């Protein structure tokens, strides 16, 4: 691996696109209500992906992750995604 690689922590959230049914979210909402939880609304479900990435820069990391999402991780017909990248400084707590 080239010496000038940095390490990033990436978190990708994939959620149903606006207008696409989210039966999972609905079911959880109903279950919470059945269990007596009040005041819960707008329940939405999604998938989470965490990974570590080696890249020369934060910009490269973001480019790479965006490509991954577009190509594989999210299906634009039904899903949208958000990416969070923690840079090497903040990566180690």
């Amino acid at each position, binding site marked *: 691996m080239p010496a000038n690689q940095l390490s990033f922590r990436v978190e990708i959230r994939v959620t149903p696109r606006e207008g*696409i*049914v989210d*039966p*999972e979210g609905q*079911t959880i909402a109903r279950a919470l209500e059945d269990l007596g939880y009040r005041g819960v609304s707008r329940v939405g479900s999604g998938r989470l992906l965490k990974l570590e990435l080696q890249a020369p820069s934060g910009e490269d990391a973001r480019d790479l992750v965006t490509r991954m999402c577009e190509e*594989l*991780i999210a*299906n634009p*017909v*039904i899903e949208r995604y958000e990416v969070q990248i923690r840079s090497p400084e903040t990566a180690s707590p």
Partner: protein
Amino acid sequence: MKIGIVRFPGSNCDQDCHRAVDEGVGAEAAYLWHKSHDLEGCQAILLPGGFSYGDHLRAGAIARFSPIMREVIAFARDGGPVLGICNGFQVLCEAGLLPGALVRNDSLRFRSHPVRVRVEQTDTPFTSEYEEGDVLRMPIAHGEGQYVADQSVIDALESERRVIFRYVDELGQRTEEANPNGSVRNIAGICDEGRRVVGLMPHPERVVSKLLGTDGLGVFHSLIGSLQATGDGTTTQTTRAGDGPAAQAAEAPATHAPGVAEASAP
């Protein structure tokens, strides 16, 4: 005439499809390995059901990147007949060969039981032996079979008569109760613009014998008939140069009348 059945890791209806082709309608069936780059001269491709790559990420999401899928996509774009059943339908949608997507059943449960589907269109290589309006009984078995797409896509599918199968009741009526998974407009199967690529959720390959039901046989008879009618079936050679032996054009010219399925000894 040779029909290719793709095997992805996790495919589990591949053998059933094989049997439907060779025992069901007496044609030659060949497995195509997902890592292969060669369609081996097959004149039609079946993408079988199952859980390719464990359905991880999304059903069909990873399978579409298999080496063999590159060939299948090229084959389809050249007008080769391709049928995706269940997981195969999901793969076709992920690969962009068919529009829309299949998401979790509205019940959030896997559903497995016989359904009735109405044949909506007969001008595809997989439905030509049926009559429009035929009501077929075949099983479904899926967790992610709810067909969704943008309104504009649905409108186009309807106006271009590309909805091929719809869930209906015993009387052939499209009702909410007959819809097992919440699919928009009870859609069970669709085709592409060229009408050569078809995907459906129910399993015709499971009902091709006297013992288990015969309503799915027509799908395979249709395919054989349409390949015979077009002579060699495939229109163009789609194997990329250098990738294995050139696929042989079909050896047997169409000597049978269209629609007559005849056993061709392998």
